[in-house]
């Protein structure tokens, strides 16, 4: 593989976990729920994904375990915030702390074990294309899935009735209730979907990114995913651009540091954040569109008048 190919490859692997976690959270926030526990769901996904793969010898079963782990934590979050109407911000933060602690505890036994990597799937016909073929069409399942999810979420949100209901619930839960929509059920489903995506994102880290378990291996990616959702103004295609931009600048600055470019390394480390924020803010300058796309009920508890 040539130099540019390996760079492209690392960009994809850096962007995929962000994209997976963020696309799930985008749906959650579109329904009006703010789940700050993405980091926690990711890391539990990572450790249980790893454990599942070790126990069964199959990375795919590992990925399923990761997905289930994320959903489990999301269910807890949903129960607390939707059923018991606990504060979403506080509950989300607690979920992250819980997830980090839980993962550290479960993962103790796995530290240092070699992991099982998700196999690369070569798409017949396409993966043999010169130059781009092996990189773009020789990826593992989760990479394809993350891209399919972006397309799918975009389609569902803006072209289907289900998506319309999700957006309506996020815009005005009182009106949605008055029209007979079951606000709590819609939000539960969205939160579970978000949990599944965050779990998979964690699984990607321990099954594909670096197939091993390291404590704290999510390294703040859940928070970056949360920020990407906001900066993309809750639009899936912008989210895709943001995740890949963040991945790309991250990899480039890494190479720049490795080549000893005469820029302070702290600045280089900060570069992906800066570049992503600047670009996403620039493309989101249309205030009308931003206002329309921002879920007005985000983070507000829903208690119907009785």
């Amino acid at each position, binding site marked *: 593989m040539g130099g540019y190919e390996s760079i492209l490859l690392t960009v994809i692997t850096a962007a995929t976990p962000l994209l997976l976690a963020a696309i799930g959270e985008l749906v959650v926030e579109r329904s009006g729920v703010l789940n700050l526990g993405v980091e926690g769901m990711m890391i539990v996904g990572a450790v249980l994904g790893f454990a599942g793969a070790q126990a069964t010898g199959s990375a795919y079963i590992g990925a399923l375990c990761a997905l289930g782990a994320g959903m489990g934590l999301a269910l807890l979050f949903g129960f607390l915030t939707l059923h018991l109407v606990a504060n979403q911000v506080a509950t989300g933060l607690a979920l992250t702390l819980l997830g980090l602690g839980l993962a550290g505890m479960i993962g103790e036994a796995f530290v240092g074990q070699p992991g099982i990597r998700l196999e690369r799937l070569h798409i017949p016909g396409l993966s043999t294309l010169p130059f781009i073929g092996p990189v773009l069409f020789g990826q593992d399942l989760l990479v394809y899935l993350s891209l399919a999810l972006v397309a799918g979420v975009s389609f569902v949100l803006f072209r289907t*009735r289900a998506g*319309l*209901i999700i*957006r*309506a619930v996020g*815009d*005005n839960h*009182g*009106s*949605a*209730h*008055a*029209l*007979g*929509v*079951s606000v709590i059920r819609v939000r539960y489903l969205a939160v579970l979907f978000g949990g599944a995506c965050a779990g998979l994102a964690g699984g990607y880290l321990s099954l594909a990114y670096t197939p091993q378990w390291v404590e704290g291996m999510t390294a703040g990616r859940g928070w970056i995913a949360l920020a990407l959702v906001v900066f993309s103004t809750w639009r899936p295609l912008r989210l895709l651009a943001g995740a890949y931009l963040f991945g790309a600048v991250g990899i480039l600055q890494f190479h720049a540091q490795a080549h000893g470019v005469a820029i302070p390394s702290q600045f280089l480390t900060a570069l992906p954040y800066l570049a992503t924020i600047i670009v996403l803010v620039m493309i989101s300058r249309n205030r*009308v569109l931003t*206002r*329309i*796309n*921002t*879920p*007005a009920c985000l983070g507000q508890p829903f208690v*119907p*008048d*009785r």
Partner: protein
Amino acid sequence: MQDHETNPPPGAETRRSGEVLLEARGITKQFGDVRANDDVSLVLRAGEIHALLGENGAGKSTLVKILYGALEPNAGTLHWRGAPVRISSPAEARALGIGMVFQHFSLFEALTVAENIALALPGGTPLRDLAKRIRSVSQDYGLALDPDAIVADLPVGIRQRIEIVRCLLQEPKLIIMDEPTSVLTPQEADQLFLTLERLTAEGCAILYISHRLEEVKRICHHATIMRHGKVVMECDPAQETAGSLARLMVGSAVHDLKRGAQVAESAPRLELRGLSAPPDGPFSVALQDIDLSVKGGEVVAIAGIAGNGQGELFDLLSGERRAQDSGAIVIDGTASGHLGITHRRRQGCGFVPEERLGHGAVPGLRLSENIVLTRHGTGDGLVRGGMLDMGLARRMEQRIKSNFDVRMSHDDPEARALSGGNLQKFVIGRELDRTPGVLVVNQPTWGVDAGAAALIRQELIDLSRQGSAVLVISQDLDEIFEVADRIAVISRGHLSPAEPAVQLTRERIGLLMGGLEEGQGKAHHAA
């Protein structure tokens, strides 16, 4: 829960036929110390337009929310076609075939008109077909809608149309309408009445709440009158006069307005000089070279059909949106087009936007806090050394409450706990309490009862007679003729010259509303 069939209220024996669709027996609803509904019984029949009347805060909205499953009664039972039912959520009411037009709309601001309507209909219709259907059906109803417009950009008059069209498209068997016409023009209301008559002929039942007694007399077959949460009377509105209905509602006669003589010529206090503004969104209206001058001592009214630039003009006057040219808006001789809203208030201006819940008041904040929001920067002593004087705000709240007869269930409630008309009285009272030198009000009496409307209109006239300039934007021609000394008409962003009210006829205003003389004498036309 006991049966309440004993003691039918007086007048209940009027000749009524038609199958009983929904019957409420002994409904009671308690909010804190207030009984919003006290042992209310009501029978709704197919083929009948049933009026629910009562002064502001009588408990009408509370009752219909209970019928629609949006509120749960403390006592009482509901019967659908004779069988007892429990309607514990709007979804269940809709499943029975009940549709509702809410007093405070239940729309989604970030969604388009078509999407808002699609949400209320069963799934399966592609949005594009629906858009076509909305276009044609809304024309039939006389409530034209643009399916692609985004609700956030639309004025309340058009939002009201969406609510109505959305409800009618669901083809409900029982339609509950909570003040559907208070922001419609007379023409739109007439069209709506034709539609309602057709629906009742087809066997629908309609429960109709309105403060416009003339229209109740015209279209309703039966009326239930509430006072302080109780049903006091049932009658046939056709047999009553508007005056007698008002007396039944309020328990006393409504006074005619007294207009003192206009004060002698004074200097203009609010002047618009060639005010133009491009549209600020895809569905907003451009203002075209507007000239207007309001002198101290007079009330000037702007008539017009909703969505012709009233909201845009109001935003520019209040400073929510700055004018491009500072000299286009002159307040008491100061070019103010670039000033912000607090600055203009400090100059002695007061503003009442049309949308009271959300724009005029923050729903989740107490009334005293809502007072602080508009008056913190106006030198009323609410802020001292960076600290809020909530005690003073509470005293202001008490004062407004007693001066404007704002009824509430407990002291200093959240804005959303007020009935619609009472909130309107509060929002107006909050501005009038400052005796502003220039007052701009949009739809001053939206949803207030006859007594309160007379009170508010009287206050507007009295304010002007003290030397203030009062500008009223309204769709209600009766109101305009009652309060205005001069009248201008807005149509597609053009404002006709203000003419003395005594020289204008309704016909001429109707023509001006339709765009006659639009931009005449001006260099350009609307795009």
